[in-house]
């Protein structure tokens, strides 16, 4: 019996590690060069040219890394959980590898968000840390990433942990709306969201434009770092195939 294809063709192509390795090699320079240009431009713009905040002074410039890293930490988590889910449902090896590649990058972003938040909190709130809903839910996100990484490293091969990791990340998804709405649901020191899809930004254009550049730059950085890890993982897991043999012996 011929299996009926219920998903578009690219979905099945994506399942081929060889195809993924080749296409990611073409995408990598695009993302990494964009990331470099956007991040350099955004940092110079944010540090030197954006006006200072009338209340917070220059410490507000930390926003240009704090907000992008916090957004990324959540987006990467979402990517990891969805990839894990696809891995379970369609038994797609590449999806498992994507989830595996996401975890350390997401943990780095959550770590940066918490660290820069603490450094920003000291001059602004007078305290490095408060047990506030936003900060605590973000800390839980970091611990979820640690849990995922620990589960992978507990197994001899990361592919053996794919299923349990996917279930953990899907359950942990409940934390994402909690992070997002924590500033609305609870009284908090943390200021509300700078960017929303429905409203105009609460800051002048000279302040939020460099922030937008940084956010896009961070996304491009994530794409680059994820593809680097994904390609390594493809080589390791597909080392018995003839195309990997050919690729490695050609170089």
């Amino acid at each position, binding site marked *: 019996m011929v299996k009926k294809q219920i998903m578009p063709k690219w979905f099945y192509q994506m399942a081929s590690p060889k195809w993924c390795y080749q296409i990611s090699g073409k995408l990598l320079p695009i993302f990494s060069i964009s990331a470099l240009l956007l*991040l350099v431009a955004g*940092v110079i713009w944010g*540090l*030197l*040219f*954006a*006006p*200072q905040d009338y209340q917070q*002074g*220059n*410490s507000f*410039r*930390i926003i240009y*890394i*704090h907000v992008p*890293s916090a957004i990324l930490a959540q987006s990467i988590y979402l990517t990891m959980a969805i990839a894990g889910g696809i891995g379970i449902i369609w038994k797609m090896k590449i999806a498992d590898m994507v989830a595996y590649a996401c975890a*350390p*990058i997401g943990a*780095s972003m959550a*770590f*940066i968000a918490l*660290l*820069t938040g603490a*450094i*920003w909190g*000291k*001059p602004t709130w007078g305290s490095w840390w408060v047990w506030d809903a936003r900060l605590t839910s973000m800390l839980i996100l970091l611990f979820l990433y640690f849990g995922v990484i620990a589960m992978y490293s507990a197994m001899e091969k990361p592919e053996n942990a794919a299923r349990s990791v996917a279930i953990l990340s899907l359950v942990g998804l409940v934390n994402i709306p909690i992070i997002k709405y924590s500033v609305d649901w609870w009284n908090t020191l943390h200021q509300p969201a700078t960017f929303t899809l429905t409203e105009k930004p609460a800051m002048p254009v000279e302040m939020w434009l460099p922030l937008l550049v940084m956010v896009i730059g961070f996304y491009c*950085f994530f794409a*680059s*770092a994820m593809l*680097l*890890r994904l*390609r*390594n993982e493809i*080589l*390791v897991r597909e*080392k018995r195939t003839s195309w*990997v*043999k050919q690729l*490695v*012996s050609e*170089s």
Partner: protein
Amino acid sequence: MQFETWLDVIEMGGHGLYVWSSFGLTVLVIALNVIVPLNAHKKIRVSLQKKFQRENNS
């Protein structure tokens, strides 16, 4: 530019330590996220090459 001199840029009106340490640590973490997989890639290639050579010889 928002600052008169480069010294002002470093001091950031008294917030220099906070701002520069944040940016410095972020650059470090981002660089690590690129350097570590790049190094791993080289190692994987070398070890696979050796493995395939051994298999061809035997």
